[in-house]
């Protein structure tokens, strides 16, 4: 998977490395700002209240 992506990135090594790091940063940002905030309420440790 990662080998396939690497082989399909264009340009010399430096360009490939930059592109690869940018893709990693993009995935991390997507997880941190979209996926995790969505998934978090489904997990148990945020329930701190009792019924009113």
């Amino acid at each position, binding site marked *: *998977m*990662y080998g396939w992506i690497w082989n399909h990135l264009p340009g010399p090594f430096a360009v490939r490395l930059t592109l690869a790091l940018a893709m990693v940063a993009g995935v*991390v940002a997507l*997880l*941190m700002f979209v996926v*995790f905030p969505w*998934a*978090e*309420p489904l997990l*148990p*440790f*945020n*329930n*701190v*209240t*009792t*019924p*009113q």
Partner: protein
Amino acid sequence: MGTVEHIGRGAGRISGDLGDLIPSPRPRARAPGPPPKDPVRTAVRTFGEVLITLGLVVLLFVVYEVYWTDVISAGKQKDATTALDDRWNQEREEHFDGLGEGDGFAKMYIPAFGADYHFTIVEGTTGASLEIGPGHYTHTAYPGQTGNFSVAGHRVGKGAPFNDINLINSCDAVVVETADNWFVYRALPKGDEKAGWADGKGKEAQCKGVSVLGGPYENVVGQTIVPPTDGSVIAPVPGSDVVPSAGEQAALMTLTTCHPRFSDKERLIVHAVLVKQWQKDPGKPDWTPPELKETA
């Protein structure tokens, strides 16, 4: 591939023939280099890569939950505190009506947790409000009033204001600052301290005003662990349906959070009782009550 290798090897020698005459001691089964495309190999490797990736995602989630939400909440808490300070500067009249969900209206200090432990309490206990800081159960009393001033707070991430409330000992102060007043609440005796309280710990100087409550409050102790469905802990008389008339109600404060940490199996509850009120002096804006210096 193999042929190309062979030519390349021979070309590097002085006598190309010699290479063919002397047999190689270790016959090569297969030429080195990238292995031929094997679908099973590819599938297994991809599967492994996916597993490693999922592991990294889980690790990243831990970072998100334990550190990143703290950063986000710290910003929101700071904004709420600034907004509250602005409001206190504008109005001198203390009132709690008309508060919107997520509006800050008081500050809480637990000196036993250190001088830097302070949070702005916001109205409401929705997820969004609790991201800002400890949230007030909207139907419960407000600071200083009789009844049960109840506040929920996170224990993991989001600033985790109530991370350590299990460490609140009996008589530890929970100081609540409002526009005009400082209210000093102190944690009630724990269940195993009730017997012999008056002759034991109850004699300590900081336990002044803290006694084993009687009457309908008989079963209220400093710290309890209850099932998550037990809403009675924030009732005017915790753990009871009895609602005494306003004149007979004690002024309590209740903190709720999840228990055990990282789980929502139960709720950890801390009950405290109002022991003192200091009216703010407009002439001395920087004055703080002596209880704030009870840092352990």
